Every structure is written in C-alpha cells, then in structure tokens.
C-alpha cells in the first residue's frame, strides 16, 4: 500500500515537474482565439450560448490549429433534471464536429406515469457545423456577421415511449443557419439562428407528432462583455408545438459565462423552458466546459 502510494506520488511529481514546459506547449496549442470568443457549449453540443448554436466554431483554434472541448450541463426544474454532456472538435476555425447526450430524468413524474421514479429519456446528438463566411470577431469594419450552417442528427433512445406519447419517429435531423457578430466597440455579441426541426422538446419527446413536417424556429442570443472573462446575456429559443398530449412553448434564459482561462469556463443561468408535459418548467442551469 505504502509502495503504491509513494509510486503514485513519484509519478505525480514527475508529471508536475518535468513536463511542465511540454504541458504548456500542448495547452497553448490551440490558443489562437481571444478568451470566450469560441462561445460555450449549447445543450445539443454545438458551440454557442446555452440554448442555441452560434456561428462561431468551437474551441480556441485559428485556421492553422485544431481545438477541442468537453462539457457537462445540468438543469434542475420543478419536475425534471436534465443533464447534457458531450465534446466537440473544431478544425481550422472552419468545421466543428460535436457529440452530446441528453438525459431527461422524469423523477416523480415517471412514478406518476407508471414508468418508475427517475425514469430517464435519453437523446444522442451528433452535430456538424461549417463556417460559410465572415469573421465575427476580427472583421470589425464589416457590418455582416459570421455565418455558419449546421446539422444535428438526433436519436432518441426511448423510441417506444415517445411514440406512445404521439411522436412519429425516434430519429431525425435538425438543420440550422446561424449568424453571429461581435460589436466589440460596444462589447455586444448578437446571434440569430434559424432552425428547421421536427423535434419535440429538443428531441427528448421524439420527432414529429400532429404533423411530420419540418418547423422553422427562431433562436436568438444577446451577450454583453462585462470584462474579458465575463459575459452576461439572454437567449430565446422557440420550439414547435406538435404533440397532441401536451403544449410546448419557447425556452428563454438569462446567463453569466465566466472563463477562468482558455481551458475552463463556467456558465450559470436561470432557464425557463416553457411547458414540458406537466407544467411550466424553470430552474437553475449550470455548465462546465473544459478545453484543450
């Protein structure tokens, strides 16, 4: 036991000591963007605000670099606990690949519906985003924003249940276009996203319902830079209302995102997700992002 401990301590001290310069070179590898300008991780895993993707490519890489980050997000509402975790890779500030898994813990509602307390519905999302034009940060003399297009391929792992609730399918793909602009002189960032989707409640309740059509939804974000590390703002995300069993409304949040450095950021928000099956759901949102 003692042996193991001293061995571990030796390994730790070696890790901490000798490769410090090397660690520094790894950690500064993708440091080519300014702090916070890669956005944070939105609920389905894309770089953006908390609810909505932005046109920025995630990670701190430039066109010569590769960046990556991972996140864990939790939202606690009156009836549910929603967690999301995932990771993304940003290639040359041009293409972003992401993966995220959302777990929707129904807690007491699960018991009431005879599904069992804490019955959890899960969705996996694989995302891709491509920057089409503009640079939201550097092109301060252009009025036009950075524009990106993306797709989120979604798979609901509880197909039988969501179909019983009226969804048509357990998989579907969202398509979106995002326009993002930083007005640096004013410390303001604006984002607008148009999304074509069949998803009910982000996809937690499956895809399609009363109809099986794509619904065009608007999402918007506004952020104010308090200082280099801290941004505060608000978001809105409209959602289709396409399930007969329960009404669905827009989600909104107010947030504060704090970047300790380019490797660690924390986002806290108060999110109001609208009605989700039982009643209006709102609560605290916390998200941690670790980047490389």
């Amino acid at each position, binding site marked *: 036991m003692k042996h193991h401990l001293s061995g571990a301590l030796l390994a730790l001290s070696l890790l901490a000591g000798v490769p410090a310069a090397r660690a520094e070179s790894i950690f*500064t590898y993708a*440091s*080519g*963007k*300014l702090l916070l300008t890669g956005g944070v991780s939105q609920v389905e895993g894309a770089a953006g605000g908390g609810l909505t993707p932005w046109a920025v490519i995630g990670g701190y890489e*430039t*066109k*010569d*670099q590769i960046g990556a980050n991972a996140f864990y997000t939790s939202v606690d509402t009156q009836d549910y606990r929603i967690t999301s975790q995932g990771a993304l890779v940003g290639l*040359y500030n041009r293409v972003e690949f992401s993966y995220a898994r959302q777990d929707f813990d129904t807690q007491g509602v699960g018991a009431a519906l005879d599904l069992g307390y804490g019955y959890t519905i899960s969705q996996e999302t694989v995302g891709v985003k491509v920057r089409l034009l503009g640079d939201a*940060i*550097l*092109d*301060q*003399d*252009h009025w036009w924003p950075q524009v990106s297009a993306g797709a989120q391929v979604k798979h609901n792992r509880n197909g039988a249940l969501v179909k019983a609730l009226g969804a048509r399918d357990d998989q579907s793909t969202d398509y979106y276009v995002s326009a993002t602009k930083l*007005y*640096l*002189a*004013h*410390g303001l960032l604006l984002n607008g996203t148009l999304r074509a989707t069949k998803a009910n409640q982000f996809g937690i309740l499956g895809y399609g319902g009363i109809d099986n059509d794509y619904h065009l939804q608007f999402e918007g974000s506004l952020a104010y*830079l*308090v*200082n*280099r590390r801290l941004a505060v703002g608000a978001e809105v995300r409209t959602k289709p209302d396409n399930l007969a069993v329960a009404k669905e409304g827009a989600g909104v949040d107010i947030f504060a995102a704090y970047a300790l450095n380019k490797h660690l950021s924390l986002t806290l928000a108060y999110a109001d997700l609208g009605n989700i099956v039982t009643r209006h759901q709102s609560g605290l949102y916390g998200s941690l992002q670790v980047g490389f």
Partner: protein
Amino acid sequence: MKYLALAALLIATPALAETQTADPFPVISPDGSLYQAFGGHEGLVRITDDLMVNLLADPRTHDFFVAAKRDQIKTGLIQIFCHVMGGGCTYTGKNMTEAHSQLGIREEDFTALVESLQKAMDKNHVPFRAQNRLLAAMAPHHREIVTGAGKG
C-alpha cells in the same frame, strides 16, 4: 488638348478625393476623449513600453520582436493609436502591408499580440470599454498583418 487636360482632371479628381478619405486608420474619437482615457501621450508611452515587455516575455511573440527595431515599432504604434483616438498625431511609418509582408505572421500570433496589448492596457488602468474601442479599430488590420500559414 484642353479637353484632354479637363478629362484627365475629371478622372484624377475622384481618385484624389478617394486617397484622401481612405485613411487606413480612421479616427474613431474625433474629440480626443478616447486619447484622454488612455492617458494621452504619456499613457501611450507607458502602454507601448509594457506591451513590448509582454511581447518579449511571451514565447509566441518573442521571436518576432527580439531582433526587430523595437523603438521604431513603439513610435509607430504610439502615432497610430494617437491618430485613431483623436490625439492629432500623424503616422509616418511604412504602410501595414509593407511592414509585415515578410514576417509570416499567423492569426494566432496576431491574437497573442492583442493579448499582450490587453495586459498592458489593464496594467495602465485603461477602462475595458475604451480598450475594446481601440481593439475594434485595429482588428481589421489582421488582413494586412496576417500573411502566414493558412491565409485565406
């Protein structure tokens, strides 16, 4: 002949007017209030001194500046910043493209410089908003400065 001269004048006039208005460093604070927020000439001297210290200390930018004419760069930066912020200076150095064409500066190097400048402005108590106004005016020059890997 007369007509020719007139025609030449007509063609030349808009071109002249254009060179006059196309200042590569447009003034963003004509009343000089931003220049004052930076502490005027003395403030800019301190900021560019600190900037140069930061650039030499940062391994990402060290090699670009260690062998450069640093006093000349500082003088140029002070003139540009002063001009842009309404301090009434004139930039007498090379244009941005000429000055940077051979350096192979990458976007991440440009970002590193911005971060060194942010530190220098912080140290000299320039308000965040005033910092961002200057950075917003400088950011578009990435097009003349960044000529290294992956351009375009």
